[in-house]
C-alpha cells in the first residue's frame, strides 16, 4: 500500500507513491468510459465529506469518485451544521467518527486543519484544500493530465501563472512536479509570489511571454476577485494586459503549448474564452481526470488493511 496513511499534502510525498496513484488513475479512466461506470472495490467503506468551505467542482468530483467505487458517503457542509450552534471542530469530527466511518475528505479555510484532525481521529484523512496551504488531489489530477498529454513528467517545463502566494493549487503543484522531476517557473505580479521561491526550487519570471516561450504547458490560476481592490491587483484590465493568457498573445508565439486551468475561470481576465475553448486547452480533460485520480486515491488509501502501529 501507499507509505502514508493520509493524503494531507504533497510536500515530501514519496515519488513512487505519486507514480502509483497516477498509474492507478489511468486504470480508473478506463472504468469511466464503460457503459456502466461503477466497480465494487470500496463496498462497505464509509466516507464522510467534510466541507467547511464552499466548493462545487472538488466536492462533486469526490462524490462521484466515491459512488463509482461503491463506497457509502455522507456529506457535511459547515453552513448547515452544529458548528453554527457553537460546537467545536474537534467535537464535530469526533462525533462523526463515533458513527463508524473509514475516511474523511476535508476542505477547511485554515491551513493545516486536516493535519490537526489526525490528532484526534483515527480514520484516513484526505485533504481537499486547506486555506492557502495545499490541495494535493488537484495537483495529482494536473500531473495525471500532463502525463496523459506528454507521456512523462520528468523534464517537463511547466509555467504556473497567477497569484501563487495565496494558491493551494500552485503550492501542491510545485511540490508534486518537483518530486516528479519537472521544471517549474512561476509567473505573476511580484507581490503575489511566495517568499521562499528559492527554497521551493522553482524559477520566477515576471514576463509572461518569456514563460510561454519556455514552457511545454501552462497552469493558469484564477485571479481571485476577493484580492482585487485590496492593493494586490490594481484592476482586472491591468492584470489581463500583463499576465492574461489572451488569444492574441498565444498567436504571437506560434508554438504548441498545453493550457490548464483548475477552475473556476474568469474568462477575459486570466484566460480568454477563446483560449479556454481552444484545441490547446485540456481543461475538461482535467475535470474527468479529477474523478479518476480521486478514485485512485480513495482506492489506494481505503482499500488495504490497516497496518499495525501506523
Amino acid at each position, binding site marked *: *500500500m*501507499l507509505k502514508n496513511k493520509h493524503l494531507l499534502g504533497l510536500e515530501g510525498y514519496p515519488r513512487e507513491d505519486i507514480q*502509483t496513484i497516477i*498509474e*492507478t488513475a*489511468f*486504470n480508473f479512466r*478506463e*472504468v469511466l468510459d*464503460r*457503459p*456502466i*461506470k*461503477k*466497480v*465494487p*472495490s470500496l463496498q462497505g*467503506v464509509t466516507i464522510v465529506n467534510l466541507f467547511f468551505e464552499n466548493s462545487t467542482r472538488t466536492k462533486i468530483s469526490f462524490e462521484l469518485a466515491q459512488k463509482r467505487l461503491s463506497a457509502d458517503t455522507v456529506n457535511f457542509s459547515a453552513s448547515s451544521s452544529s458548528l453554527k450552534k457553537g460546537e467545536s471542530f474537534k467535537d464535530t469530527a469526533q462525533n462523526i467518527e463515533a458513527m463508524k466511518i473509514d475516511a474523511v475528505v476535508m476542505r477547511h479555510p485554515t491551513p493545516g486543519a486536516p493535519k490537526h484532525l489526525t490528532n484526534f481521529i483515527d480514520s484516513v484523512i484526505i485533504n481537499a484544500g486547506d486555506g492557502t496551504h495545499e490541495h494535493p488531489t488537484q495537483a495529482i489530477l494536473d500531473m495525471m493530465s500532463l502525463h496523459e498529454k506528454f507521456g512523462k513528467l520528468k523534464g517537463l517545463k511547466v509555467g504556473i501563472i497567477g497569484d501563487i502566494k495565496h494558491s493551494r493549487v500552485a503550492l501542491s503543484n510545485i511540490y508534486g512536479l518537483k518530486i516528479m522531476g519537472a521544471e517549474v517557473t512561476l509567473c505573476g505580479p511580484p507581490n503575489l509570489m511566495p517568499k521562499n521561491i528559492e527554497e521551493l526550487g522553482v524559477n520566477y519570471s515576471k514576463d509572461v511571454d518569456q514563460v510561454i516561450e519556455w514552457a511545454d504547458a501552462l497552469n493558469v490560476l484564477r485571479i481571485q476577485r476577493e484580492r482585487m481592490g485590496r492593493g494586490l491587483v490594481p484592476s482586472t484590465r491591468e492584470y489581463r494586459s500583463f499576465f492574461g493568457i489572451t488569444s492574441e498573445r498565444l498567436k504571437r508565439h506560434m508554438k504548441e503549448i498545453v493550457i490548464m486551468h483548475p477552475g473556476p475561470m474568469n474568462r477575459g481576465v486570466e484566460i480568454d474564452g477563446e483560449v479556454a475553448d481552444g484545441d490547446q486547452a485540456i481543461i475538461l480533460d482535467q475535470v474527468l481526470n479529477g474523478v479518476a485520480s480521486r478514485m485512485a486515491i480513495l*482506492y*489506494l488509501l481505503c*482499500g*488495504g*488493511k490497516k*497496518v499495525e502501529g501506523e
Partner: protein
Amino acid sequence: MNEESVSRTINRLCHEIIENNSNCKDVVLIGIHNRGVPISQRIQNKIKELIGIDLQRGSLDITFHRDDYRERLVVPELMGTDINFSLDGKIVVLVDDVLYSGRTVRAALDELNSFGRASKVQLAVLVDRGHRELPIKPDYVGKNVPTHEGEHVDVTLRETDENDSVFLIRNRD
C-alpha cells in the same frame, strides 16, 4: 504438459467452442489477465485458421472487482481492462489459464455486466485443478489436474514467459 500438448489442448478447445456455438456466430472472446489474455489470443488465431472467422476479443482485469482487496496489503498490479465493444446479445467465452477457487471467475462475471448484457457466458480454461469455493463450472477444460491443497499449478506461456508448460508443484513438506 509441454509445448506440444499445450498447443494440442488449445486446438481441441477451439474445436469444442466452434462445435458448441454453431460456427461461432456472435461469439466474443474475453481473456482474464494475466495468462488468460495470450490464451484467448491463440484461440482467436486458431479459430480464424479453422473456419476463417476473426472473433472479437477483449481482456479483463478483475482487480477492482476482487473480494479480497481489503485483506491485502500490497499495491495491486493493474493490467487494465480493454473491451471496446458492447456485449449486448453476445456469447462471451471467458478464457483463463487455471481454474481453482472460482473467485476470479466470479469477479469476472461481475465485471462483464458493466459492458452490456451477454446472451450467454461460457468458460474455457487450460487447467482445472479443482477445489472450488463457489458454484462455478467450466464449459471447456484443457486438462483436469486433481490437486491437493498446498500444491500449485504453474502455467508458463511463450508470450509472457520463456516457453509453454504446465507443471504441478508439490510443497516439500
